[in-house]
């Protein structure tokens, strides 16, 4: 009974690294358009998804996040700095492999391309990701 209650009360904490030019703008648009999404994310603006150091992601997980969202511009052509998003994509793929070896569910880290006009997509992603993490449960690091 206790465990079930814990899960029902559990509100996942998501750190979202959002690139200034696309994903963060998309998040702003969601806000301005009054689209609803769960308040579980803590948005952090970065100039480009290519600025996201995998160390940030590990730090976030270590410091209490149950999930990490990376938001960047669509490949192949939307990145304001030309190819920063490709770096994020490739690093993310390798980080997932690493997380698996560490025994952490790699789906706790999610990468999405969200353009400045995709306010709706943004709110949908946050909703889905929050639901997923709620079901999965908190990240309990040893």
């Amino acid at each position, binding site marked *: 009974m206790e465990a079930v209650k814990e899960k029902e009360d559990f509100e996942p904490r998501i750190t979202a690294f959002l690139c200034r030019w696309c994903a963060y703008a998309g998040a702003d648009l969601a806000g301005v358009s009054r689209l609803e999404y769960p308040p579980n994310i803590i948005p952090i603006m970065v100039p480009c998804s290519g600025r996201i150091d*995998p*160390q940030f992601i*590990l730090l976030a997980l270590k410091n209490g996040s149950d999930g990490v969202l990376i938001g960047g511009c669509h*490949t192949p052509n939307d990145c304001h700095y030309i190819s920063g998003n*490709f*770096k994020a994509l*490739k690093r993310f793929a*390798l980080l997932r492999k690493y997380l698996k070896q*560490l025994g952490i*569910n790699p789906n706790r880290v999610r990468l999405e391309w969200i353009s400045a006009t995709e306010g709706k997509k943004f709110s949908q992603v946050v909703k889905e990701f929050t639901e997923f993490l709620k079901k999965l449960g908190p990240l309990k690091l040893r």
Partner: protein
Amino acid sequence: MKKQVKIAIVAGASCGGCDVAIANLHERLLDVVARSDIVFWHTIADFKKEDLEKQRNIDFGIFIGSIRTEEHLELAKILRERCNFLIAFGTCACFGGMFGLGNVAERYELLKVGYITTPSTENPREVIPGNKFEVNGVDLTLPRLTEWCMPLNKVVNVDIFVQGCPPIEEAIDKFYETIIAYADNGVAPERGTVIAGGKTLCDICPREKPEKITIKRFRRVHEGPIDPNKCLLAQGIICLGPITIAACNAACIRANMPCRGCFGPPPDVLDRAAKFISTIASLVEIENEKLLSDEELIKIVEEIEDPLGTFHRFTFPSGLINKKQEDAEE
């Protein structure tokens, strides 16, 4: 009359390589011996634990190896209490070292494999050493493992770090000069010093580096000939040069083998595996990113086998996440 420096050399979980490295000062060893009063070094001298416990005012306590058992924990504390400057000597003491890979499993599992499941072991009663064991009322229990393997600075304050697996002669020489400066002129080394400098291996690597390094596919070292003149990364071979401190003489590179990072990272790195994930993934098809689909790029990246065992082979206990987790699967 020049002052004698009091030194103690104490080992945690060590392979013995650092002891041999100090002995491999060769002729210089006699200079070291002439200026120092070595009060504990179990590999070379006969002082026992009781002698170490009686010591006071050791100038330099050198700790080799990582913390893997309660005995090591105790020795680290004994040494810290009795010495002025505590040195983490070698990659194990600084970062956990190779035995840190033991953190991929809980102690019981490591034990089970060694004493029960290996094919030549015959142990029908499933005896595992380390439990309480007495003979005629005499306690002969072996020291237990600590829950996880740890570098020295996770259990006591460390003053000086000498990186290397093992540290090279030049680093040990530099360290020795530091000791003598203290003995002769009272010049105290700065606490937190890393005896190695701040650059990475790529800076001292003798190979040709192209203007841009791009990796089209990854090759493991057995797959084909390795060109001894070109940058290894440019040949698609994983080399940890970018994330390894330049404190060796690029010995492995000169032997035509890629760097595996045994000297540890440069300063100010929080998690070396994460840093290298950033480097190596970025280089995949860096000239052709826009010509390939997301899936094609991911496929190449996923060719990399065993990121944990390759990027954190010597430093896992010092990582941001430094032990195997048991997270839920869907």
